[in-house]
């Protein structure tokens, strides 16, 4: 089902990747687990706007971002704590701190909303970065779909070493063992407080990068570029972003 057109793509895009993008756009617009479709679409709009925010630019340039005071320039009516999360994640994620995250959550943004906001924002960033890289303008964000969030928190999620609760390997249900169970890397359980968000983001991951199974296979060539070339691009982007993980 096409909800966002890629007809103007300057090059042919492989079908599985196009379909993954459509599913991602659909997910962004639909009611989530804790957030309505309208809020999720607003997050997408706000993350896209973050690079035009003067306050963000000032903090990015500062040696100590937490000493800079001011207010974000926004394009939505998302609450301030959520805007702070979205804008910092988009413009200066390398310098985020546990205490900062805790402060946002203590100010009224729930842990679940925090995680779902991260998921939606990062999905949008991924889709927009692809468009930018391949030479397309950002896609029109689809209209929000009505409906109520499910508000189901996984009973097995608990506080571990991350800043928010997640599903630890030993706690994964039988149905989720392949996704969050033993042997699964920490990054794949990062969003597991909101399992639908984790599954959705890594659905996109399968087409833009590799599936969990493909990642373990260093001999099969799954893409037009080699595994070494894939990891080189991935590594350089992560170094530029100063992401230690």
């Amino acid at each position, binding site marked *: 089902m096409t909800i966002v057109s890629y007809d103007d793509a300057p090059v*042919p895009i492989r079908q599985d990747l196009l379909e993954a993008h459509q599913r991602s756009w659909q997910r962004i617009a639909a009611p989530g687990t804790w957030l309505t479709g309208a809020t999720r679409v607003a997050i997408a709009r706000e993350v896209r706007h973050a690079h035009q925010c003067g306050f963000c630019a000032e903090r990015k340039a500062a040696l100590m971002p937490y000493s800079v005071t001011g207010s974000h320039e926004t394009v939505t009516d998302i609450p301030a704590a959520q805007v702070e999360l979205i804008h910092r994640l988009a413009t200066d*994620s390398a310098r985020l701190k*546990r205490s900062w995250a805790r402060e946002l959550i203590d100010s009224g943004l729930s842990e679940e909303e925090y995680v779902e906001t991260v998921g939606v924002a990062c999905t949008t960033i991924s889709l927009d970065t692809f468009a930018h890289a*391949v030479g397309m303008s950002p896609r029109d964000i689809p209209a929000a779909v009505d409906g109520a969030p499910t508000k189901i928190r996984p009973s097995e999620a608990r506080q571990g070493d991350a800043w928010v609760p997640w599903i630890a390997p030993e706690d994964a249900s039988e149905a989720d063992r392949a996704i969050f169970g033993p042997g699964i*890397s920490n990054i794949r359980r990062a969003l597991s407080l909101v399992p639908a968000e984790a599954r959705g*983001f890594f659905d996109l991951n399968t087409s833009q990068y590799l599936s969990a199974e493909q990642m373990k296979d260093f001999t099969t060539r799954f893409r037009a570029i080699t595994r070494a070339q894939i990891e080189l691009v*991935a590594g350089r*982007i992560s170094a530029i972003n100063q*992401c*230690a993980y």
Partner: protein
Amino acid sequence: MGEADGDGGIPNGAMLVNFAEAIAGDDVDRLKEARAEVTQTLGVDGLVDACGVAAQFNAIDRIADSIGVPIDDVRLAPTADFRQALGIDAFPSRLES
């Protein structure tokens, strides 16, 4: 942003590093040229694959940083030497995870 030099022994590595840097940067002319070079060298399919990887890691990095994802225990020992050599252990995100 850090320094990248050469191709790391990977075919067309320097070109792909340049492309990744162009995607992450603000210079639209540099990106346009880098894209053309990748297309000419690796073909359209190679370009799309490289774009997909860059896009995904530009996002996944931010998940790791905003959730405070710690490096997996099984990777700590095998990566200790080059994390230190490359300065990764000094990244703010490493200190906070």
